[in-house]
């Protein structure tokens, strides 16, 4: 999967779509990271169940809205955002952070392009 | 400042708040009525208060919008009712006597008189 990303990033960086989607990619990355942080703290018993449930709902809704606003939803970053969305609510922080790292890689390479 | 003293209409009178003899807020000096003419002494005859007095002080289309929302009422307060002009115009009569509290009184009918400490 990572090799596919590495090969397609230069192609993606050349088109107008990815540049326009940069804010959405950053938002998805941050939302994924917030979700991972919430799940990590929940596992340590630091959060109330109500807070965890409401944060997960809001994060998921925001991710869906971000994905809907991407100009190229079928791009590698769109696939990554969709994969993040398909994770269960109580996904492990590490699983969520794998998606976050992938999105961060794409974000950084687009910013430096 | 006392009546009879010269005053700067724009910086010392126009758009000043008006307080009645009991210290209640009862409007803003929206315009003034003058007596006199070019080359003759000019005196302030009355203060004009109300949205109708905005005509001439703003673009026509804005005034028409204001009039549609707030009406075109003008209340004329004769200069004889003015006690003092400083940071506000102080009247020597009550707001009701000057015709300045009608809208406030109409609004009061909508407010229940209970519950407040």
């Amino acid at each position: 999967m990572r090799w596919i990303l590495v090969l397609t990033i230069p192609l993606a960086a050349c088109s107008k779509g990815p540049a326009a989607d940069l804010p959405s990619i950053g938002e998805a990355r941050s939302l994924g990271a917030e979700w991972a942080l919430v799940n990590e703290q929940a596992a340590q018993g630091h959060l109330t169940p109500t807070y965890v449930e409401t944060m997960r709902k809001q994060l998921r809704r925001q991710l869906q809205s971000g994905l809907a606003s991407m100009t190229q939803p079928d791009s590698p970053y769109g696939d990554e955002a969709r994969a993040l969305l398909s994770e269960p609510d109580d996904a492990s922080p590490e699983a969520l952070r794998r998606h976050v790292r992938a999105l961060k890689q794409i974000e950084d390479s687009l910013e430096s392009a | 400042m006392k009546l009879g003293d010269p005053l700067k209409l724009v910086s010392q009178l126009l758009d000043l708040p008006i307080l009645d003899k009991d210290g209640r807020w009862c409007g803003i000096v929206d315009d003034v009525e003058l007596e006199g003419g070019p080359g003759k002494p000019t005196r302030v005859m009355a203060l004009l208060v109300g949205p109708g007095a905005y005509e001439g002080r703003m673009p026509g289309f804005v005034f028409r919008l204001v009039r549609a929302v707030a009406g075109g009422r003008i209340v004329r307060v004769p200069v004889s009712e003015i006690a003092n002009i400083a940071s506000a115009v102080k009247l020597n009569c009550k707001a009701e006597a000057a015709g300045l509290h009608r809208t406030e009184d109409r609004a009061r009918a909508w407010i229940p008189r209970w519950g407040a400490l």
Partner: protein
Amino acid sequence: MNPLELTLGIMTAVGGFVDISELVFAAQAGSIFGYALIWVFAFSTIGIMAFGEMSGRVAAVAKQPVFNLIRHRLGLKLGLVTLVASLLSTVITCAAEVGGMGLILNHLTGAPYLLMAAASVAVLMASMWILPFKWIERVYGLLGLLMIVFAAALVAIHPPWDRLAEGFVPRVPTGLSAKKLLQFAYFGVAILSAVMFPYEAYFYSSGGIEEEWGPKDLLTNRVTTTVGFGLGSLLAIAILASAAQLFGPANVAPELPGSAALEAAIPFGRTGLLLALLGMLFAVAGAAVETCMANAYAVAQFFGWEWGRHKKPWEAPRFTLAWIALFLLALLIAMTGVEVMSLVEYAVLFSIIVLPLTYLPLMLLAGDKGYMREHANKWLAKGLGWTYFVIVCAAAIAAIPLYLLTSGGQA
């Protein structure tokens, strides 16, 4: 100077300093730029101290509320432009605060966000109806002191204090790309706007008249604005610094207002989380009340109506109807479903544009010996006032281009 009154005044100012905009921008600024924007918070706080002190002094000596001055100094046409612009910016700010309350109550209770926003407005309106001015200000300001949990949380996570202290030194980080520089500038403008919101001057000055301040209260005014706002600003800086320590390394740039509560949950667990959410709730509630009242003050003062919560609601009927209508309008905006974060950005954008029109008449009057006698602006107030006025004008010009170029701070 009554020590108890002074202490309560300072504590109210501290608890009432942070609102939803400062919460959001402090957390984002810290997570994206580390400690580099601390100096902007400190710098902006000096600005609000200067103008807050002026607005309180004008209330105490000239006994003139801000919007009377604006009408008198700018005239009807420009005054009306200022009134409409400030109403727009403050209504949007109020809607953001109402939305923020709805979100926080959703996190506390699990009840639907829109229902909680509506319930919040009902409770706020009831409190404004029942309580006289002093108690409205005190209740929300003192309960907002629960925000101190953020300062405690910062200490508990052992930040690098030397790097944090360096954040107070004005500088732009080196090695930033052009996009990141623009984003840094956007955050600078946004923080300046959020700290120096025009509604603060309207509310503070009108509050001084509500409390019948006179020249004997000038020292209270000076101490409240400097110590109170200064300590309040430290709370906002604590939120920024915790975000730098906890969110930045985790790739989090908080997209939700509720994320800030994690800063207290991480060191203190559920107790920290609940204290943070309650502190945020009351701080934002206080800001909702202030923005609504500031708007009602503006309209009533501009048109010369009876105004003030030192009167019973039926003694100032048009003023009462104004704040009720404005609260309902803010709720309506929140209920359109516009994201609270978007409302915060629009509020900050509109407010910085209105700021020059608000502060210029205030500064001119505070320096006018005809009104202020021996209490007119001296060299420090003049120097600070004009310096900040120039900076605010520059920020007002740069605000919209920066917003567009950075897609609202996203770079």
